[in-house]
């Protein structure tokens, strides 16, 4: 299980890469392995939309499950990675390269509730598999 040290993690298994006020968001290796083979990806927001932490950003479907991707931070969507819509297999093979969207954060304090790599590793271990 890969858990890069330079990212932040949410309890719903999103990763966040922080660069100033910009947050890049995707789902973790743990999340993709739980879902198994992904067969569909769809954005639930448009570029430019103002979003709230906890809101639904996208839906990922595998044969066995459908999972919502939640916003780990509040702010404004500034970029969608449209390439994952068609090449969703990449989410399974390279979850940290296939980011979903970028958000300009409205409150940097949101980051305080996220885990660092060590905490997230522990959190995954607690849940088994």
């Amino acid at each position, binding site marked *: 299980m890969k858990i890069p040290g330079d990212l932040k993690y949410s309890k719903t298994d999103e990763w966040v890469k922080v660069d100033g006020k910009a947050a890049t968001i995707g789902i973790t290796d743990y999340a993709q392995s739980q879902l198994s083979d992904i*067969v*569909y990806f769809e954005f639930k927001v448009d570029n430019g939309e103002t979003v709230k932490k906890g809101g639904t950003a996208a839906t990922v*479907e595998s*044969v066995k*499950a*459908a999972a919502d991707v939640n916003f780990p931070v509040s702010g404004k969507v500034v970029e969608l990675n449209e390439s994952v819509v068609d090449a969703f297999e990449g989410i399974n093979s390279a979850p940290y390269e296939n980011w979903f969207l970028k958000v300009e954060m409205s409150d940097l304090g949101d980051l305080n509730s996220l885990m660092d790599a060590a905490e997230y590793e522990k959190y995954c271990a607690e849940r088994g598999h």
Partner: protein
Amino acid sequence: MFIPHTDSEREEMLKEIGVSSMAELFNAVPKNFRFPKLNLPPALSEMEVLAELTELASVNESTRELICFLGAGAYNHYIPAAVDAVISRGEFLTAYTPYQPEVSQGTLQAVFEYQSLIALLTGMEVSNASHYDGATAAAEAAVLAYHHFRGKRARIVLSPAVNPQYRAVLRTYMSGYTGLEIVGDEAGSSPFLSVDDLAKLVDMNTSLVMVQYPDFFGRIQDLTAFAQKVHEAGALLAVAINPTALAMLKTPGEFGADIVVGEGQPLGIPLSYGGPYLGLFAAKKELVRKMAGRLVGETQDEKGQRGYVLTLTAREQHIRREKATSNICTNQGLMALASAVYLSLLGKHGLRKVAELCYHKAHYAAEKIGKIPGYELQTSTPFFHEFVVKTPAPVADINLHLLDHGILGGYDLGKDYPGLDNHMLIAVTEMNTREDIDVLCEVLEEFNHG
């Protein structure tokens, strides 16, 4: 009968369980509610129940005895004997939803073929495995459109010439979504509103526009320009169809419809006093993941053998729970099978033939009725196998008179359209002979004189 246990087996089984009586199995049920005395008639043997039900059925006057000119959403068509022979097979009749594909390939392939037949008949890219009936399929189109625009487009435009029952069910379904507005068919709007006038109601806030083709009054018209206007506003176009008519008419797919819904009953399903019928639902491929209901897809097993499975199941209620857009679990499996058998039997030539018989006979009837003094044909545009006649007296009165002569008269449009008292919707199918039509005309004329 249907409970096979002998006394000695029952004793053995109770002993294995470790209880001394059947009653002991129900100790968890609160005592004051346990074993209520039910007031039901005494049990009948098979022989008696058949006699009783035969008696009850014989109280009805069916379309086997009456000459039927009643349609309005359910149609009297010939059903070849092979349809019932196939769907009566226990292997189809007594199987469950095909959750275990290895032992359900029969149902799965039949549904796959049904999907193919419906997609090709409607000119759409994909069909689902069916909904409950035409009305609920229409309601599901509205649900789809709502979610397609993530709830951001609040208007639905409904043609008043969509089957009134479809519109009623759609309203019931959509009453749970707040802020939604349904326009076009309000009380007071003209029942014969043109599509050009309907198009004026379509705005950038519209999620779905629904029209019927042939419409509830039987009329047919080219919808290409209308579809363009709907799409210019970014809305989805749903067309409610009659599958028999599509054997001879341009398909909604050719017009550019996004969704096709319809009542599949004309495809080999008996009238059966209103059900079970078959909800047709087909769409453009880009909407496939938003379609409610089951879908069967082709795939392979480990050895590379072709096989079929339920697919895109992750969208469904048992996985997405409260986030699912529909709670549908089943399709009308056996009815979908019946229509697949019907379409296979009739095929390219047979279905076209049925459609043309309906068309020619309806036009013969319309022309003839239009010439009877006091009756006025209201349908001037092209029509398929149903048309509207203005009658010289209340439709109910005329129908009583027709019934005395063994004729089941047309539908009383005044029931649904306040402005259309004394308007009768007459349906003619391949089941009506020229003689039937001539008799109808004679009796209508006679009523006028009497």
